[in-house]
């Protein structure tokens, strides 16, 4: 197995006195495509934010490439849940993506030639280069999602964190989107959070279920027990008829 690049050890996090994450342990190897599923309010987004360094844990440690997350920010790409944030803001698509090249406090408001070339490459990779001069508010949810992934990729991250990346993408372009993720996964480790189990139809390499406690499985398969544990109520497993994925049968079936 490849070397572990994210190590979460005995992690506790509470918000307003309520425990959101309870003694979570997780290690993610390089090249993994990990999907964290779980019910709304189960702590998925919180876990992602702790792993990226946006939130500090109450107890326990998170290390990314052996360092606290904020020290390796340049290796981390992050795609937020809400891509519609600030949609009236006067900013063009290209400028949003250039934000991913920001070196803080550097001053002087010019981006270098390399920055612009990297932004073009990221936008082309996500197939949204043609919208570069559009105002951000004019794009559809799916286009926005691609722009935000381009913003995350433009800094050449080694890990890509996706928070509910499928939420803004309509059903018929999902297949294509999963294909893009699979392609990205050839060079980048992906950690995606989703309450939508459709994401499991892509080439997911491991799955974790979270509802305060975390259950991690080093395979792309998901079992009824995992879901029952995570959701505390029976959830039906749905196979999507996607040929490359076969869901493991329930033990007593």
């Amino acid at each position, binding site marked *: 197995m490849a070397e572990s690049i994210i190590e979460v050890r005995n992690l506790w996090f509470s918000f307003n006195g309520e425990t959101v994450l309870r003694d979570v342990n997780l290690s993610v190897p390089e090249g993994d495509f990990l999907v964290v599923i779980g019910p709304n309010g189960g702590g998925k987004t919180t876990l992602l934010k702790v792993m990226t360094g*946006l939130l500090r844990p109450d107890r326990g440690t998170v290390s990314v490439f052996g360092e606290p997350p904020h020290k390796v920010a340049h290796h*981390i790409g992050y795609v937020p849940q809400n891509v519609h944030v600030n949609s009236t803001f006067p*900013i063009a698509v290209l400028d949003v993506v250039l*934000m*991913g090249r*920001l070196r*803080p*406090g550097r001053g002087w408001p010019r981006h270098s030639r390399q920055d612009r070339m990297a932004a073009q490459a990221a936008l082309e990779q996500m197939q949204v280069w043609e919208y570069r001069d559009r105002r951000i508010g004019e794009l559809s949810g799916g286009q926005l999602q691609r722009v935000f992934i381009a*913003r995350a990729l433009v800094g050449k991250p080694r890990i890509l964190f996706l928070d509910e990346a499928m939420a803004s993408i309509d059903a018929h372009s999902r297949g294509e989107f999963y294909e893009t993720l699979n392609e990205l996964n050839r060079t980048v480790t992906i950690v995606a959070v989703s309450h939508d189990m459709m994401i499991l139809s892509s080439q997911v390499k491991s799955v974790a279920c979270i509802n305060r406690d975390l259950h991690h499985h080093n395979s792309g398969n998901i079992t009824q027990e995992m879901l029952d544990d995570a959701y505390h109520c029976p959830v039906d497993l749905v196979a999507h008829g996607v040929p490359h994925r076969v869901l493991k049968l329930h033990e007593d079936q």
Partner: protein
Amino acid sequence: MWEALQADFIRNALAAGILVSIVCGVIGTLVVVNRIVFLAGGIAHAAYGGIGLAFFLGWPYVAGTTAVSLLSAGVMAAVTLKARHRADAMVGVIWAVGMAVGVILLDLSPGYNADLMSYLFGSILTVPASDLWQMALLGAAVLAVVTWYYNDFLAMSYDDEFARLRNVPVTFLYCLLLGMVALAVVMIIRVVGLILVIALLTIPPFIAERFTGSLRAMMIASSLLSCLFTVVGFWLSYAMNLTSGATIILVAAAGFFLSILWERRRRRAGARDGKPA
């Protein structure tokens, strides 16, 4: 009007109006996109406490107002960063307390109280040349700071979470912004008065936001609109013998409603042609 331009006080007034407009366009843009209009209003009204303090202690106006504005900006920065969900109520409290302290200090000040209306509604005609130099200096400082941190301000204003992730010093920039708002307020009070500060900080950027494609363009457009409103308002107030601050704001308001009408027409025309607006 051309004879009037010969007079020093008219030229000073126009120069003050233009300097204030440039600062308003830049700072107002950041205030509007960061949604801290209410906070800026709080700082402006709390500045009245500074005017009272200056009278009470016999300080120059600028010293008292600057001190109190920066203090209230500091308190508001701390409150909004620590207890975001109750920040609006706290801003309301500081807003009212600042004004009340100003009134009481003026009550307690011995002797003649200067024309308070001029601090509430501005007194562009009495701006002395020495104030112009202070304004020019402050304006240059604001422009330099915003230019230097432009990309960081852009990232913070658009998506502060992403900015934090990229290690942009968001807390520092936020405090810096509130500090600049406080200094801008001290300057704008001279021209339109503290009651009308929010209007000049918000109306031009609000119009500009819908017709510009970048934060930089929004700042430039806001500054130009602000210049236009100030000069036209000043000319009208001079020609019709009205209070200049209130006239400037009404001109800005007229511009605001015209821009809404124009945008509606444009949208309707766009819909007729089958194009999205």
